[in-house]
């Protein structure tokens, strides 16, 4: 029996009066990649951003229900602590343009004012860049700004930056949607390898991507959780008719 790291219970989300998530119940298993897929506007990004409380900055967003990280309600915790434990990678690579590659990786500590010894800093940077398969590419240019990096490298730098905080969960919000096929393949490979270190939740509108790299898949449609199962099971024998129609390209 695999352990449940995150439990979402009776979760509802609203923007003003419009309900975008309806009674979501979901348990995420540790050290797995769980894909959340569904057509545009189904609420997948809303759901993933609820997990690290990024909606706190949207004044008209309202959340109801519970999200438990190791049985502790995220909405009762300090949002700062939540976001240190749950990292995020965004749709478009967003390294800090004013910082060097090294400082980008260590940015989480710098921003939070956490003092580290030089040795610890170096170790964290090397370890994070190795995990994101970037170390060999940038080890000679660590103190340059990341302006010469390609889009795919910038995205892997963002993954390294999130991993440096040693998060328990890494949220990936369509991390390859702004990248070319080669860079996409590289990131997908990386996600598969990272399972050993961190639990990942991946939002994607790409069915093939969900099939390639996730162990579990959630299918969201119009704010409802339609189906949640092992990826290979859902891809081959979906239980719900809507899932089947989505997978076969009837809509979405």
């Amino acid at each position, binding site marked *: 029996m695999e352990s449940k790291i995150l439990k979402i219970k009776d979760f509802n989300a609203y923007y003003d009066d419009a309900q975008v998530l309806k009674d979501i119940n979901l348990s995420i298993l540790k050290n797995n990649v769980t894909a959340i897929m569904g057509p545009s506007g189904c609420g997948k990004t809303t759901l993933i951003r609820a997990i690290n409380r990024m909606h706190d*900055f949207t004044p008209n967003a309202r959340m109801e229900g519970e999200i438990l990280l190791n049985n502790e309600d995220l909405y009762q915790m300090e949002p700062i602590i939540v976001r240190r434990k749950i990292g995020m990678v965004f749709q478009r690579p967003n*390294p800090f343009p004013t910082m060097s590659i090294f400082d980008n990786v260590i940015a989480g500590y710098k921003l939070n004012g956490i003092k580290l010894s030089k040795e610890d800093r170096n170790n964290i940077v090397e370890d994070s860049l190795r995990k994101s398969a970037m170390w060999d590419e940038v080890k000679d240019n660590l103190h340059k700004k990341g302006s010469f990096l390609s889009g795919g490298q910038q995205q892997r730098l963002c993954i390294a930056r999130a991993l440096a905080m040693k998060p328990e969960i890494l949220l990936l919000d369509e991390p390859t949607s702004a990248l070319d096929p080669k860079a996409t393949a590289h990131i997908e490979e990386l996600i598969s390898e990272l399972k050993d270190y961190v639990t990942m939740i991946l939002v994607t509108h790409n069915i093939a991507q969900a099939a390639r790299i996730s162990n579990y898949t959630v299918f969201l449609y119009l704010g409802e959780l339609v189906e949640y199962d092992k990826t290979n099971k859902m891809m081959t024998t979906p239980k719900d008719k809507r899932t089947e129609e989505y997978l076969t390209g009837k809509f979405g």
Partner: protein
Amino acid sequence: MMLKKKNIKINGDTIFKYAIGSSVVVLIMLIVGIFVSLIVYSYPTIAKFGFGFISGHTWDPVTEEFGAYPFLIGTLITSFIALILSFPVSIMISILLSEYLKSGVIHNYVKSSVELLAGIPSIIYGFWGLFIFVPVVREVQMYFGITPYGIGILTASLILSVMIIPYSATIAYEVISLTPSEIKEAAYSLGATHFEVIRKVILPYSSSGIVAGVLLSLGRALGETMAVTMVIGNSHILPDTLFAPGNTMASVIANEFTEATSDVYLSALIEIGLLLMIVTAFINVVGKMIIKKFSVGMS
């Protein structure tokens, strides 16, 4: 035939090209013209005093001895004090408007008030300064046992600092608002607080724009004439304290051009004008270099 006809026709593109080209030529000629005429008309004192005009401490129209050092110092001191006083206020206003009060009635009210500061004619600042602010300064000076001039370097700097707030504040507001939400979100997602995001992400990102705004306000402070002339005390002696009366380059010109009866006197005032132009241009060039250095390399 058709082709030939088309070639002869003067089209909008050509006219527009010449129009923008000629406006550039006019602009350059104007600047060169002002510069050259200032040099020509100040030639008598340039020839007579040489570098001594800049380093000389004595300004005596009766004996026709002209040294502009006290005014150069007066201009630089008042401008930099004004800059130092106004900068924290400008930056805080711009952060308030772009990060804390992003919209709404108070936002609009504060923003319009700041913009209105730039619209107040300088004579009103001078007038208000002389009749309302100077008496207050005098009271303070008496309380501390300083010679109660009221008018002086510090008073002029204070008035100037208020006058230049809008220039740096509006530009800082614009650039801070332009910080991409992607990098702000990235910082939040790492657990940064709002203050940490402002300090470590937004301000570094917008630093070049903020410096640009500061330079614009410095340029404004250096050349500001009317308000300063009214409250600075118009003394030709190099001020020994911040409370002493002094003079700036602009205020000397404004005060004395009507009295400049001799050619040398007039030439001396024009040379001050030339000097002021060079100082302003120099600070602009240095500023551009600073902005370049601060600029963000990543797109």
